[in-house]
């Protein structure tokens, strides 16, 4: 029975677990390596842009957003996969759960720590990317002004406008937000897998498979809905893939955003909402498994 001062649900307890998880994760060497690699890749995109003439911004954006997507996904899986096994190994889990901390709060705190870590990573990477983009833009603008110094002012203004328009695009922000939503989904799904997995390696391997299947899910769904010629066994398999796995292709919008395709606000909101809905659902599933798990 709970003591009179004990509350069934406490944000304070969750915040304590979150802060602790975040501290642990930031001390991880793998986190530093991955982040450093991401930063290096973004930095190298400035160098890579030297190789091209017309599409330097395109390459810069592709490399930066592609690496951002890759590293946030990697970070989400690798960081979450080790949370529960590490706490079991260190016996921290027993210490926490021996206190009046509900298992749901423990899971929420752990996941919130990872999501905070992902948010920090995305913010740092985005800031570096925008700085790199701005530096390149200024260089190109300066070069353009020098080359067109003898041209009429209207022509120069048009050229400068074209340079600026191809460099920064407000649609990059929704694109980055969708990358974050995808990472949150992956983190939550990893947490769910790790509740029944025995080792972090198993969880990571399973998540790699889920990652690829998730990107194929849309094809399976289309085939399931449209194809009448396939056998029932194939249809059952396609239905299985469609129903059990998330459609990760829905979160790959940056490929089109970098080429100037604008994302309407409603569509962005729906895609992001789907991502966070998935995150919540997998957290609940994780709790269902973890609730009565023998520790």
């Amino acid at each position, binding site marked *: 029975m709970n003591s009179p001062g004990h509350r069934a649900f406490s944000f304070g307890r969750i915040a304590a677990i979150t802060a602790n998880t975040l501290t642990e994760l930031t001390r991880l060497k793998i986190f530093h390596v991955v982040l450093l690699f991401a930063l290096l890749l973004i930095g190298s995109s400035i160098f890579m842009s030297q190789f091209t003439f017309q599409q330097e911004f395109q390459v810069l954006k592709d490399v930066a957003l592609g690496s951002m997507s890759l590293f946030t996904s990697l970070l989400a899986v690798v960081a979450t996969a080790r949370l529960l096994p590490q706490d079991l190994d260190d016996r921290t889990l027993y210490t926490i759960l021996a206190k009046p901390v509900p298992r749901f709060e423990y899971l929420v705190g752990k996941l919130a720590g990872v999501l905070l870590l992902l948010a920090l990573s995305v913010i740092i990477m985005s800031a570096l990317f925008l700085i790199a983009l701005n530096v390149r833009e200024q260089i190109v603008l300066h070069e353009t002004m020098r080359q067109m110094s003898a041209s009429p002012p209207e022509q120069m203004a048009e050229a400068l406008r074209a340079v600026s328009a191809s460099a920064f695009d407000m649609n990059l922000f929704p694109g980055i937000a969708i990358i974050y939503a995808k990472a949150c989904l992956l983190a939550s799904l990893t947490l769910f897998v790790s509740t029944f997995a025995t080792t972090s390696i198993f969880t990571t391997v399973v998540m790699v498979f889920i990652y690829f299947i998730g990107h194929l899910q849309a094809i399976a769904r289309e085939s399931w809905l449209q194809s009448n010629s396939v056998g029932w066994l194939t249809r059952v398999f396609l239905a299985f893939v469609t129903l059990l796995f998330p459609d990760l*292709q829905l979160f790959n919008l940056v490929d089109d955003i970098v080429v100037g395709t604008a994302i309407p606000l409603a569509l962005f909101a729906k895609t992001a909402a789907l991502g966070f809905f998935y995150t919540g659902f997998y957290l609940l599933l994780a709790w269902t498994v973890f609730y009565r798990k023998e520790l």
Partner: protein
Amino acid sequence: MRFFAVFLSLAMFGAAKWPAEHAISAAHRSEHFRALNFDLGLREQIGQMGFVAALSGFRSLIADVLFIQTHVAWERTDWGRILVLFRQITTLQPREILFWDMAAWHMAWNAGTAALNDSTQPRLALRIKAQREYFQLGKDFLERGIRNNPERPQLYEALARLYRDKYKDHEHAAEFFGKAAGLPGAPSYAKRFAAYELSHCEGREREAYDRLHALYIVSENERLPTLLSRLKHLEITLDVPLDQRIPDLPR
């Protein structure tokens, strides 16, 4: 029992979410997102690893890597390789205007000129034939690019330039400059260029004169040397009354 409950929850959640996923997926396609079809044709073109990477959300990065490879192939003047690479690149990233434009430029301008000056082919007729084939490849890239990006003016303009500079087909050049000019974001010169090209078309001199004269009236900024000389030429061709003619060009 718990496993069954979790499996059932997943299946029920899946049944609830797939209509939403399907609807969002359809909305993405209607907004030109995810225009790429992942099929066997693409896998054959970009290879197994590239296909897997493209599926995992890195098709833009792969397209960039291949684009950098085209520069290497260009330095070696390996036109066959450039063609193959650009077919892969434009398949992976059909919404990137620059890839279509560059592909057409390499084929119609660079490879076409190289074919005409090919010292290993002594027969001029065959060199010209090879050049025309490269023009056709360039045109094909631009036409497919337009089909993938019908709302953007750049490729219409590029196709107009190809008709003007390579085929000397002023009628088609005028048509595509005109189409480019009618789209949002078109450069200010597209309309003027359409009129220039029309002024070279036999039987359409009056229409060209009207368009050029309208541009002449609309702004002093439009009174560029080419516009003035084409107008003067048409005034003589159409025998425009002296009092309606524009002032003579300064010598």
